[in-house]
């Protein structure tokens, strides 16, 4: 187990290819840094992210999960972002039932040109998860 001061959370970010993934790219082009412990997974739409994808990320040792999709009314697949929002809420409840803080999973919406917003979300979530500490599921945590 890492010393508490050195805790670097594993955060999985499911990023919609139409918005958040491009926003991460924009952040890179703009030379805006964001924490290297955010692992970006490109998905065709936030609506592709299933409850099970999120749960399995926690099973595999994630300390936090982010679902990033398009702004409401801007989903290329019409309602993928709304579906994702509902699923994140559902996972929130499922985690609480297990005894894991539901705040470890969050959803945000952004546009492809919002590189700085992407970095800000990444930084804020990173700080929040650091405060929560390692996931209680991690062995030895």
């Amino acid at each position: 187990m890492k010393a508490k001061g050195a805790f670097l959370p594993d955060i999985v970010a499911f990023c919609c290819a139409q918005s958040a993934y491009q926003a991460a790219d924009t952040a890179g082009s703009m030379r805006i840094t964001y924490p290297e412990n955010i692992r970006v997974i490109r998905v065709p739409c936030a609506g592709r992210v299933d409850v099970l994808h999120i749960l399995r990320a926690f099973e595999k040792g994630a300390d936090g999960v982010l679902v990033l999709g398009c702004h409401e009314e801007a989903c290329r697949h019409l309602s993928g972002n709304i579906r994702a929002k509902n699923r994140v809420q559902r996972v929130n409840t499922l985690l609480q039932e297990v005894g894991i803080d539901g705040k470890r999973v969050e959803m945000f919406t952004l546009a492809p040109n919002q590189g700085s917003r992407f970095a800000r979300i990444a930084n804020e979530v990173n700080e929040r998860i650091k405060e929560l500490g390692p996931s209680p599921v991690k062995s030895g945590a």
Partner: protein
Amino acid sequence: MIVAERKPLEDIREMIAGYKKILIVGCGTCVTICWAGGEKEVAVLSSQLRLASKKDGNELEILEATIERQCEKELVEALKDKVQQVEAVLSMGCGAGVQPIAEIFPDMPVYPALNTTFVGMPEGEGVWVETCRACGDCFLDKTGGICPIVRCAKGLLNGPCGGTNNGKCEIDSEKDCAWTLIYRRLEQQGRLDAMRKYYPPRNFQAVIRPGKVETLPA
């Protein structure tokens, strides 16, 4: 269809406490439709149980299987290979699904992960309502296809009672008065004469419990 709800995780964990390897069995019919015990719900429950046991530092291996119907012995028998590998079975079927598994594998402890609630139908996305009490003496021919035994709070055969209030029930102002619905339906069909008839008390022994129906294929 049969509607069920999953038991709270805490109750399920208490049932399977002490086992190191279990099989969770889903059912592909009614409880899949009502999002309580299909393939997806089996995967979600397994994930939750794995997370909870890892959190508490317990070892738990889970096998998963979803069969078309748990209430048919022939289909349940196909679980034999998996059942032989585990210490206990957690059924995500209705009560009529748990029992065939327990009967076919009598040496195996079988636990229910669901509470079977009623026979009903979907009212909207994610909402199911009770529509049939399975009483064995169907009354729907007289009531325009609306069952007062289930949908009237008092189960009246000669309604409405004095508590009907602008189409709502005195027990719950959110709930429709079944007999108002029946009146409107019969009015629509020009069958209001059915409202004027008196119906004597029902035969409550139409089905001797436990029920059994013997028939031959058509």
